């Protein structure tokens, strides 16, 4: 199997897994997460910030490309980073404004989904590093980007949880 076919199969398996895991993670076993009116408003703003982040990032990358600067990573990773960056901005904004978790989310089950996603990304990365060494241009760079994203969000969840722990209800 060549690399592009492997990427396609990985993506398809990932999407199927996400759908199954989301059904398992919501308390009403629906794929769609329900939000209240305040959360929808905040998420709208979060999507806007995420969109602007992606536009700015892609503009910078286009400028790099036009000026002949080549980055030592695979081209697919450059665009994937833009998508992930936009997603992280959206998620971070929602976490801080209490609009990340929906009304029908089960946090414990979501924690399991997060850990499973981290494991699914860590396994090919560790296997590749063991067999070929650390390679940013040809290795499983997308898995590394996903792991960094999960790490950033994990730290944010933890900090937010500790901040809210004491003064949750005034």
């Amino acid at each position, binding site marked *: 199997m060549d690399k592009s076919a492997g990427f396609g199969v990985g993506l398809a398996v990932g999407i199927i897994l996400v759908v199954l895991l989301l059904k398992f993670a919501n308390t009403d076993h629906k794929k769609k997460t329900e939000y*209240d*009116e*305040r*959360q929808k408003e905040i998420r709208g703003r979060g999507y806007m910030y995420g969109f602007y982040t992606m536009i700015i990032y892609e503009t910078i990358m286009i400028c790099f490309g036009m000026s002949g600067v080549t980055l030592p990573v695979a081209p697919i990773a450059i665009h994937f980073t833009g998508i992930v960056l936009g997603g992280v901005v959206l998620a971070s904004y929602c976490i801080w404004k*209490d609009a990340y*978790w929906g*009304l029908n989310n089960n946090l414990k089950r979501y924690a399991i989904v997060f850990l499973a996603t981290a494991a699914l990304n860590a396994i090919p990365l560790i296997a590749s590093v063991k067999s070929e060494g650390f390679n940013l241009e040809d290795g499983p760079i997308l898995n590394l980007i996903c792991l960094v994203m999960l790490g950033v969000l994990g730290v944010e969840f933890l900090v937010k949880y500790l901040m809210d722990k004491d003064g*949750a*209800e*005034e």
Partner: protein
Amino acid sequence: MKNLKLKAARAAKDLSQADLAQMCGVSRQTINAIEKGDYNPTINLCIAICKALGRTLDELFWEEENEDAE
């Protein structure tokens, strides 16, 4: 501006923010934001809160001018 009337009405019914949130179909943080004055709810949510607490819109959400000045 803090909505102390809502907080008092909720306390009078011995409800937590989470209880009221569940009755109104919103998150606890949304009730907290309304009580702290950080979020202006839509009329639909105001009505849902009033029904849950057995109060009128005037009793919970109407601010008299002299109250604003205080």
